[in-house]
């Protein structure tokens, strides 16, 4: 058993950038400062991880203690995992007083009554975030420490961020345990996924700079812009249009940095409408498409499309509504009736 735990620690340490290993071990606190002094952190990571694992094994580390190191690592590097957002609902307006001990007890009890072999760890952070690490086993097998799910719950909100492991079958049980433990009624998955946990939080907690979309065109604002060139013979032909695009872009996206998402997906089931000039397809069935946008920083990328001349300004609300609607997966159907050519997103 000890070697298994030690190996797990060795692999966890291997993931940590070499310069951060000492600090993370200090935060972990399992090894004393004196023991940490005995380690040479200037070796190759391979050797450092071996030494740490050996030292931990000599000090009889158990799996729950090892799991804490894993939580610390994932808390500092959450972007290595992909996170989905869930929202819990309760009937009635009462704000129950949140009792952490009660939550933890109920959560554990619910999980363990259904599945004996689980490792559960909790860790609280200053921003009211409760991190939960669950390693899943089966009725016959011990928990697999390499197949873990992470839950981040901000107790003052109905939102839960879940990074499920490959074992998606455990999700219903996990959701159930959360609902029971937090005294909510039910939980639903939002259509919002990303690697960047903080951006997901920014979106659902509305911490990014929001815009209020208006339909009244505002007059051009005076800005302190240095004249582009001194030579008066050079005129920017479409300067007005460029400024309009910048202004509209700012209105639609806001001035602040965008939350970081890597993709957006649209399942389109709208009608194909041909330009009257093009004598084509005029079918009563929807034109079924699946569109995926991906980028290291999707919203910033979309924001730069109109100024680059690749899109109209304002950009389509299907794209600009992503932070406000807190979703990046959409199913778009044709809105029937009064306004042809407008879309609904169910």
């Amino acid at each position: 058993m000890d070697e298994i735990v030690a190996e797990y620690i060795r692999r966890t340490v291997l993931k940590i950038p070499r310069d951060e290993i000492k600090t993370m071990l200090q935060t972990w606190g399992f090894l004393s400062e004196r023991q940490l002094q005995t380690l040479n952190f200037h070796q190759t990571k391979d050797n450092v991880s071996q030494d740490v694992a050996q030292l931990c094994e000599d000090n009889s580390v158990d799996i729950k203690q090892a799991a804490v190191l894993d939580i610390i690592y994932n808390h500092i590097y959450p972007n290595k995992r992909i996170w989905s957002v869930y929202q819990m609902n309760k009937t009635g307006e009462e704000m129950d007083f949140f009792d952490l001990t009660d939550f933890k007890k109920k959560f554990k009890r619910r999980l363990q009554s259904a599945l004996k072999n689980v490792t559960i760890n909790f860790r609280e952070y200053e921003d009211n975030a409760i991190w939960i690490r669950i390693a899943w086993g089966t009725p016959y097998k011990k928990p697999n420490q390499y197949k873990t799910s992470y839950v981040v719950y901000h107790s003052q909100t109905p939102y839960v961020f879940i990074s499920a492991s490959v074992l998606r079958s455990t999700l219903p049980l996990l959701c159930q345990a959360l609902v029971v433990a937090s005294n909510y009624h039910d939980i639903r998955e939002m259509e919002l996924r990303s690697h960047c946990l903080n951006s997901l939080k920014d979106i659902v907690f509305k911490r990014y700079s929001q815009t209020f979309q208006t339909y009244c065109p505002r007059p051009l604002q005076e800005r302190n812009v240095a004249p582009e060139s001194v030579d008066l013979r050079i005129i920017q032909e479409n300067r007005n249009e460029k400024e309009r695009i910048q202004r509209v872009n700012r209105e639609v996206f806001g001035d602040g940095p965008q939350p970081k998402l890597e993709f957006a997906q649209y399942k389109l089931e709208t009608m194909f409408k041909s330009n009257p000039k093009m004598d084509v397809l005029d079918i009563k069935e929807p034109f079924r498409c699946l569109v995926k946008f991906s980028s290291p920083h999707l919203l910033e990328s979309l924001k730069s499309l109109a100024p680059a001349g690749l899109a109209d300004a304002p950009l389509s609300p299907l794209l600009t509504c992503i932070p406000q609607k807190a979703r990046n997966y959409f199913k778009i159907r044709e809105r029937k009736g009064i306004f042809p050519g407008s879309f609904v997103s169910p």
Partner: protein
Amino acid sequence: DPQKTAFLLRKQWTLYSVTPLYKFSSANLKEYARLLGAFIAAEKQKGFAVEVGVDLDIRVTFSSLPDLRGSDQDHAAMHVQLSSRSVSSKNSEEKLMWSGWFCCVSGDDLSENIPEDFTCLPLFLANGAESYAAIVGSWFQKTFDCRFRRLAISPLNLTWMAAMWTGCKVEKNASATELVFSVPCLPQPLDISYAIHPEDAKALWDTVQKTPGEITQEEVDLFMDCLYSHFHRHFKIHLSATKLVKVSTAIASAHCDGIIKFLQSKYLIGVLMLLTELAISQIQ
């Protein structure tokens, strides 16, 4: 014969154009295999082919694929395979490491006009480590005085493939017609995948294409414009201003860097014919 060509399907092939081979003869395939084998062994001594461990024995096979051609005017396709066997362990199996084949499908444009001693096999497809393609390529270049060049596929040609392949009849549960666009020059690069249900894409193409058995540039342009305008209606983005980098259908998929995947043996010759044409125009 689908069995013989099964090895071609569902693999990623990197494309090259090859200028005509001087004094090549299919009667000498065994000799060529021997010579190429010796060449590779020599290169290994010099320190090339770093993929292979020192104690791997490489065996070269040349074989002919007579079915892979458009007409009798075309030279039969030729397959070169590199397989490896561990030198130390006696009973180890031979593993296929690298595979490449030359072919010509309806290459009359080129083969009609070349002198006697030249063999016309303008299309080369390789699967496996790049270092082997380089070694095999350089042996062919030295031996037959030819030249290999990576075959890039322009966005224009990709749109032709999209239109043509979408028009092919496929069974139920066929995969979507997918176009992948790239916008690299933004502060944050953007990739857009636009996949259309194969039945709906085919229905659109069928209304655009007027003359059976013939496809015109106008029809391809109209098809693409329809797709672009449907996209613009929803997202206000001008796809036509971005770079089309990959086209994927149930028949085959093609990437602008010159990478192809054949997905159905029924249409294999048709796709090879198109690729031969691209190779020939790159040569000329």
